[in-house]
């Protein structure tokens, strides 16, 4: 894999932007050109958040085209389905099985699709379902869901584990560094 399109999606507040930053920095250090695109402001207030990361020898457009995502990391179950048109046949989908209810569901106006995971698995996709929330909680930091998922993703990329470690060490404040690294390692192990 010498070039790729990685889509990261989830809900505002899940640490998607930090995960994308770590990913991009690791890809840069591994010698690739990288572009990362995201949206701030109104779009972030508890809404659906998506970040596009593209890498290769030379990257032009910052946006992934529909039908061309090689890997998707979904921080929330439903969000994986929302971005379905970005996948190609055989795309790898790392999906956190955690459910965060969208407002229309929380207020009882709509129903969370009970078969979300089956809907993903029934398509021509390589689906890796991970209980990232459970793993993060097991290392003692529920907010480390993003590091669990970065760990899982790291296994699929042409970037040495060491590089990810260095970037995380440089980027995460000392107080919470240890649990975040633990979360990363657990996530990575989950893909073996």
């Amino acid at each position, binding site marked *: 894999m010498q070039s790729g399109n990685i889509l990261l999606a989830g809900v505002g507040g899940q640490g998607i932007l930090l995960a994308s930053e770590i990913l991009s920095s690791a890809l840069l250090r591994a010698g690739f050109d990288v572009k990362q695109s995201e*949206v701030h402001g109104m779009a972030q207030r508890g809404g659906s958040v998506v970040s596009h990361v593209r890498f290769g020898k030379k990257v032009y457009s*910052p946006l992934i085209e529909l039908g061309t995502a090689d890997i998707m990391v979904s921080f929330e179950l439903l969000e994986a389905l929302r971005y379905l*048109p970005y996948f190609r046949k055989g795309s790898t989908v790392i999906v956190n099985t955690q459910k965060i209810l969208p407002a*229309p569901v929380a207020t009882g106006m709509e129903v969370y699709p009970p078969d979300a995971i089956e809907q993903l698995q029934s398509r021509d996709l390589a689906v890796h379902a991970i209980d990232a929330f459970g793993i993060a909680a097991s290392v003692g930091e529920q907010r480390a869901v993003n590091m669990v998922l970065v760990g899982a993703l790291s296994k699929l990329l042409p970037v040495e584990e060491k590089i990810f470690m260095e970037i995380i060490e440089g980027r995460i404040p000392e107080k919470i560094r240890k649990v975040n690294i633990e979360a990363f390692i657990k996530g990575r192990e989950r893909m073996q």
Partner: protein
Amino acid sequence: MNKPGDTVILSGNEALARGAYEAGVKVASAYPGTPSTEILENLCRYEGVYTEWAPNEKVALEVALGACFAGVRALATMKHVGLNVAADPLFTAAYTGVRGGLVVIVADDPDMHSSQNEQDSRNYALAAKVPMLEPADAAEAREFVHIAYQLSEEFDTPVLLRTETRMSHVKGIVTLGEQTASPVKPGIEKMPGKFVMLPGNARMRRVELGKRMERLKEYAETFAGTTVEWGDLKRGFITSGVTSLYVKEAFPDASVLKLGMVYPLPEKLVRNFAEKVGELIIIEELDPFIETQVKAMGIQCKGKELIPSSGELNATIVRSSVTGEKGKAVFEPVQIPMRPPNLCPGCPHRGIFYAISKLGAFVTGDIGCYTLAALRPLSAMDTCVCMGAGIGNAHGMSKALGSEALGKVIAVIGDSTFFHSGITGLINIVFNRGNSTIVILDNRTTGMTGHQPHPSTGRTITGDQTVSIDIEALCRAIGVSRVRVVDPHNSEACLKVLKEEIEMPEPSVIIAKAPCVLIPEMKKRKDKKRYTTVVERCTGCRFCLRIGCPAIEWVPLTPEEATKLGYKEKQKGFSQINVTLCNGCGQCAPLCKFGAIKSDGGGDDAVR
């Protein structure tokens, strides 16, 4: 801190800030606005640059202009709609010109990710007669800021630098440069013929401005950021900024004239390019800005008959617009619940808007997080136009309808928005014997753009302590005698005050004062309560869902499940507070008539 020569990943906005620092900017002023906010937020971390949040963009540009009159390099940044506010000084700054370099960065938001319109700021360059540069990515952003300052000083003009969401918020690889200095000497120098735009002087400067534009046209021909890549000559594209990247992605082998300077255009370069290619297509986001000018040169080309003139472009749209080729999507979208943005759990706006929704009044609204109160289930806002508009709108409606409108119209505005553009509207109401009621939603911060301080927070952009302007005293000084302060979390008390004030035949202001739950002081507070549900007591009446708090979740039940849980068979479900989301505002508790919502009494570890 990174040093010159380092290769790092920066967003467009971080790169613009870095460029400004490297170019030796001494004074920078701005009002926050997506997608421009992070430029100043990053610039304020560099040594040797004075930065500030101004109350609005007009002030910001006037401050930057003053700094440039004093002979230093100065910067004003804003979002596209902010340039409407700052247009007044901009148009005359084009006449005065500069002493130190003056750059205005304007950030457009095609597709309106976080804006009320998607105006194309390039039109301002043409209308105000100032040059405009448009970088395509973070690396160019850093570089173009340097060039913009040289250009400003060499041609004695303010320079507009246009960015947009997909430049500002895209991260890419940037190699950092050394700091440079302006050749201009700072100090006080009186230049009345240049700085005092009395008609006599302005007429002279207008002639200068015309000559300057002619020289800038010549300069555009050799501008370093404008490039021609020759490829397939059957078809050639003229494009600029981020769009040029979509063109490269869609047509890697095409001939492309990429304009780094979008105004004025390099006419000779355009003619030469047009002559060499078979079919000429202009690919640009939003307005046919380049296209109209190229057509005015008498050059045949295609543009907006192929390319959409609203919304964002991307490589797929560019490709399919030109060739008719379909996109590559293989999976159809599936019908799933939307995830719209929402007021946060514990947001003080929710409480007062719940009260406002019960008034049954027409609510003239404004710009901020609280605009989300227009959405279901609160549905408590009926207009949203621009910063400060709600106050003028309410007054206009009441003058139009006279006594018929009394008690039926109310304006809401945020604290930061009030400082931005609300004060003059309030003065107008008092001056012209209006009777409107204005609710100022004082959450002690600029919420939507990410918690920037404003004139009433007591802190500057760098966190230093300053005077906190008293909104209540300000309203009284303006001449409003009825000013009341309420706790927005207490809906019942709010409703009582709202009902009293809206009926008053004189202007009144209600200040709904409670801090945003996301500001650091609130996040760190030790006495934070959390609320939980005694689910056995829930009768499924759904009353608590009416405030639309994301922490209150409805759990639907089948008749069998209901019976099994000890509820009546016909109970459709129960409400449950998600404790990890609850911020402890307590707005929901009084809504439950069955005592199913309880506080844990506070403290760090009370729940969990």
